[in-house]
């Protein structure tokens, strides 16, 4: 397999009164072309920061990131990003929000309009092309932003807790949708999440990150047949993966067993 992304000893420190605070400490990770990798960790473990450093939107304090043959120094544009919020432009219709990708890149819009229609149909938004974001629910808005990230057919898709703000049912549906999209297009996907089950359900490999400083705690290949269904979550194999990861979070103090909170006294 060809290497899509090579992250080598990447570090991010923030200056503070007492010296530097490590947000991300010496993270090294290779991602293969077409691989679906989940970055899993608690809030504030630097997983989103790592993603933003990959896109060249946040400067790194050390290390190198290489995507394909390019070393990431400034903003890297040969990718699509799905942000935590839908991040749509309120003044544009659904279609114009999706086409923004083409407009900014200065590409010929004619062939892409067709593709935009196809993408919107694929995520169930046919007929909403001329609506504005405020007329859509949160789940629908996030679907529009997925279409926008895919429109120019980038080889790499970065997703930064894309479904974190959505209700559980919408999230389930979008998880299945994103698997379909990935299986059809074989893009390299890096998916940041704080949900153990989301990570196990979607990923080929789950990168478990430790809390402050953000380091790679474990790399867990997920060997479950595809396409995975929501019911996959109830299988023993899935449960074993989830249990193993949960055990790590308990060990690191991210999760506490019931009854362990006795030392906290009012």
């Amino acid at each position, binding site marked *: 397999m060809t290497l899509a992304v090579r992250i080598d000893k990447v570090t991010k420190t923030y200056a503070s009164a007492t010296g530097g605070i490590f947000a991300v400490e010496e993270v090294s990770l290779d991602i293969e072309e077409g691989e679906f990798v989940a970055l899993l960790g608690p809030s504030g473990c630097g997983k989103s920061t790592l993603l*933003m450093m990959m*896109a060249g*939107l946040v400067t790194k304090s050390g290390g190198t990131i290489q995507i394909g043959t390019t070393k990431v120094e400034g*903003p*890297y*544009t040969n*990718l699509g*990003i799905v*942000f*935590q*919020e839908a*991040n749509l*432009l*309120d*003044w544009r219709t659904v279609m114009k929000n999706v086409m*923004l*990708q083409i*407009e*900014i*890149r200065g590409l010929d819009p004619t062939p892409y309009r067709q593709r935009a229609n196809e993408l919107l149909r694929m995520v169930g938004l046919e007929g*909403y092309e001329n*609506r*504005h*974001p*405020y*007329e*859509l*629910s949160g*789940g*629908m808005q996030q679907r529009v932003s997925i279409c926008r990230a895919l429109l120019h057919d980038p080889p790499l898709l970065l997703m930064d807790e894309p479904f974190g703000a959505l209700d559980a049912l919408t999230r389930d549906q979008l998880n299945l949708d994103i698997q379909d999209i990935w299986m059809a297009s074989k893009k390299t996907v890096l998916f940041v999440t704080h949900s153990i089950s989301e990570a196990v359900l979607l990923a080929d490999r789950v990168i478990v990150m430790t809390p402050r400083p953000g380091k790679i705690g474990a790399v867990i290949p997920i060997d479950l047949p595809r396409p995975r269904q929501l019911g996959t979550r109830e299988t023993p194999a899935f449960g074993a993966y989830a249990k193993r990861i949960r055990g790590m979070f308990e060990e690191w103090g991210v999760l506490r067993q019931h009854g362990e909170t006795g030392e906290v006294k009012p």
Partner: protein
Amino acid sequence: MTAEAVSSTTKGPDATRVRVPDWMYPILALVVVIAIWDIGVRVFDVKAFILPPPWKMMTALFKNWTSLSLAMLYTLMEIMAGFAMSVIVGVGLAIAIVSARILEKTVFPLIVGSQVIPKVAIAPLFVIWFGFGITPKILIAFLISFFPIIISTVIGLRSIDLLKLHLARSMGASPAQVFFRFRLPNAMPAIFGGLKLSITAAVIGAIVGEFIGSDKGIGRILLIANGNLDTDVLFAGILILSIVGVVLFLIIDVIERIVIRWHVSQRLKHGVVL
């Protein structure tokens, strides 16, 4: 529309009752004020040169219609010229301030600081510099009305979400694209807020200019009427000036509704509840 779509109309519990249109409320309130005014003048027997009854004001308005409307037209010209200058200079300076750190550090504090100077106090200076013609009035209208525009435009241009800038840069947007596709549309609601404050200020500015020294305009008529104790003419002048001010404001309001339909402030205006 599927169940997931957000409904764009809502029926309140009073949907079956007769609805009073929104524009009726201020008119009804005005009728009440005029009624109180009329009754008050009669009951307390107020002299007409102190407070004329409403009908006397209306009579004065019709009797002096030609001179009042011509004067208003002249003043309107000053207002519009001053306001136009404010929009051009205010938005232009705001863009410059937001794009260049050095201007933000040097020019912006001076502009903010200059607002402490009472413009009414420096208006006579303009007469010395520019005479009694239309120029000093336009300049005073501009001076009073450009501040709200520059402040609101600077705030609007600055208050863009970091994620939107990330999005722009991940698409390889040029600085011009970031400005015209992201920052400027994002700033439109704030800019319109500034325009509304500015147009009312421009009316004040034009009148102040005419008070200082003028041979034309509604401000001059007000001064003369005041001097002659023609209080009914004074009130007629104030009425016509107020109507023009409200109409100017409403024109901007209508443009705002069309331009930023997408914004939450407009949606609430249209009675859409999310």
